């Protein structure tokens, strides 16, 4: 009974982690950007979905769509207002741009977090679930919304796989992640590829944010921990490797769930972080890293 409980709860949380981390690693793979405003974009999506559905009463589906839309806009804003100006700047030496992007996105994330706290307070918000009620699976009372979350996450990741491997745009994105120079030589505009990737990222982060808002709820305090968990999953899986991140998301998700059930909910995140340190020692490039 308890084993099933862990299996089911762990799967939902892991799928959610996977979705959140996929966009994060995709951007790093293609444009070398570590976006530290990731958590803020997810929270913005969830809070927007909550505000639309509960304050403006637009309904659950429209609310969720608005949430994803807000994440998409915020992702583009991040790219055009923060990342691109740094990448294009001639005054910042090339070797320092990475650290500038890190600092820039971190500050941007804090700005979004403070804005959310200012307008919506720092109390947690929860998005109205699209499906309500519970079902019994293997004797475990499971909220339907948890199953819905897991299914949507898997579907979106599958769609992403199709997009990257089966479409022309996707192949260009893949190529850019392997060899940006080569892509430019083939006559593709790198900036356009970046815009596509930021768009995909915005949608992924938005869906992850809204689902998280339905599943567990978020507040402006969640910004830091969400960025940190995506970051550690991506580092564990290997920076830039989408499949590595997927595996790492499930490793972290299940490790946390096991700890919460078998040891104590208070120590939930500790073993995953210890594992991260351990992997960094023996395999610095992460599970499926390329370097």
């Amino acid at each position, binding site marked *: 009974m308890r084993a099933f*409980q862990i299996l089911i*709860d762990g799967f939902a*949380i892991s799928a959610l982690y996977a979705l959140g981390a996929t966009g994060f690693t995709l951007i790093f793979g293609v444009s070398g950007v570590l976006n530290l405003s990731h958590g803020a974009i997810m929270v913005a999506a969830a809070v927007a979905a909550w505000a639309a*559905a*509960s*304050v403006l009463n637009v309904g659950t589906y429209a609310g969720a769509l608005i949430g994803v839309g807000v994440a998409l806009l915020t992702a583009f804003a991040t790219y055009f207002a923060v990342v691109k100006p740094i990448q294009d700047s001639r005054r910042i030496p090339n070797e320092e741009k990475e650290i500038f992007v890190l600092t820039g996105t971190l500050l941007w994330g804090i700005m979004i977090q403070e804005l959310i*706290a*200012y307008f919506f*307070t*720092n*109390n*947690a*918000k*929860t*998005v*109205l*679930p699209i499906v*309500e009620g*519970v079902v019994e699976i293997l004797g475990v*009372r499971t*909220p339907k*919304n948890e199953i819905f979350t897991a299914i949507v996450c898997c579907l979106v990741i599958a769609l992403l796989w199709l997009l990257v491997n089966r479409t022309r745009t996707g192949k260009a994105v893949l190529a850019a992640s392997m060899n940006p120079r080569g892509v430019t030589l083939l006559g593709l505009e790198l900036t356009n590829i970046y815009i596509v990737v930021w768009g995909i990222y915005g949608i992924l982060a938005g869906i992850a944010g809204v689902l998280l808002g339905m599943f*567990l*709820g978020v*507040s*402006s*305090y*969640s910004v830091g*921990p969400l960025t940190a968990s995506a970051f550690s999953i991506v580092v564990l899986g290997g920076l830039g490797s989408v499949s590595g991140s997927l595996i790492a998301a499930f490793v972290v998700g299940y490790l946390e*769930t096991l700890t*919460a*059930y078998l040891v104590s*909910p*208070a120590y*939930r995140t500790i073993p995953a972080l210890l594992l991260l340190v351990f992997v960094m020692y023996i395999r610095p490039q992460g599970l499926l890293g390329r370097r």
Partner: protein
Amino acid sequence: MKKRLSVALRMALGTAAAGVLMTSGAALAADPIRIGVIAEAQAIAGASIPQAAQLAADEINAKGGVDGRKIEIVGYDNHSSSADSVRAFQRAVNEDKVNVVIASYISEVVLALEPWASRLKTPFVTPGAASNEISKSVHADYEKNKYTFHGYLTSAALALSVCDGAKDLLVDKMHMKTAVIMSEDAAWTKPLDVGYEECLPKIGLKVLDHIRFSPDTTDFTPIFNKIEGAKPDVIITGISHVGVQPTVQWKNQQVPIPMFGISSQATNETFGKDTNQAAEGVLYQGVSGPGVAVTPKSVPFAENFKKKFGNYPSYAGYTAYDEVYYIADAVKRAGSTDADKLVAALETTDWEGTIGRVQFYGKDDPFTHSIKYGKGLITGLMLQWQDGKQSAVWPKDIAKVDIKFPSFIKLSN
């Protein structure tokens, strides 16, 4: 005749001039009474503190102030941080020259400010923190810490209030026998849990398990799972930093056990919306509530607050409002804003506010300078979220409705 008239004229002019001089002299003497308000402007519970204080000040000023002196509120946002609060306190006293400080609903913040009230010799009242340590420190070193007043119930009193309510509602009426305590790990819950462990068995609720969790917990599934495993009749809560998330997950997972106890966020009117009405059926302890006439002042205050700010005040709003009034009363009785005279006057406070009759425990009580708990003073009440509203269910004399639960709650008796 002409001469006499001019004398009269001169006299009249002279009197008028003297009158002008005297009034301007009085205006000079009537410096405002400055109250610094340090609060968590971004948290719902904290946001009501400066608003309620301002409302009280406006009302007092509209009636002419205190002996002609106006009350001026100087507000500071502490971002829920102890460090920011200490800086705000120093600034309030050293630069903005406030006479008294009202600050924070977070025990950790108040405990950080307490030594500063002593060092800067500035009377300081908290409207919402609960830790026993606040008033215990005053008792332990009275001469040093006498500047701090605990304007809200201590955790020990809160536990008593919950147990008193649980005895009538859960044990006597619903014949419940067992409980699991679920509380967040914070300064205020340590004494609360001690209080719970002591008083629950006395009223006939056996404590089967006691779960303390980190305030940054987001997934409560394992916690509810563990609680369900123990099969208690009720979950006794001690939560304040968290509130929305456990409540929503309790409903989404349809945990069949009622929640009863302290749930500070549930005292906010916005809690229903924040949880998408998952709060339905949650039972929480409060000192006041919308539409609950604890005293004749409670309802008018709540309604005026809502008219002005658009929502009902949080629990700390009620206490902050009362505090401005009894500080004004103490200044009047002391005839001065001198810190030591003000402390002496505050100690003899006997003020009927919005949450009951406010008096402070004396020097010899272990909870020196904390507000007194008990019948005829402040007892607190139990409220329940019903049909999207907060309704009083205990004590009997002010209860408006009976307890009812959402359909997923399965009462074992």
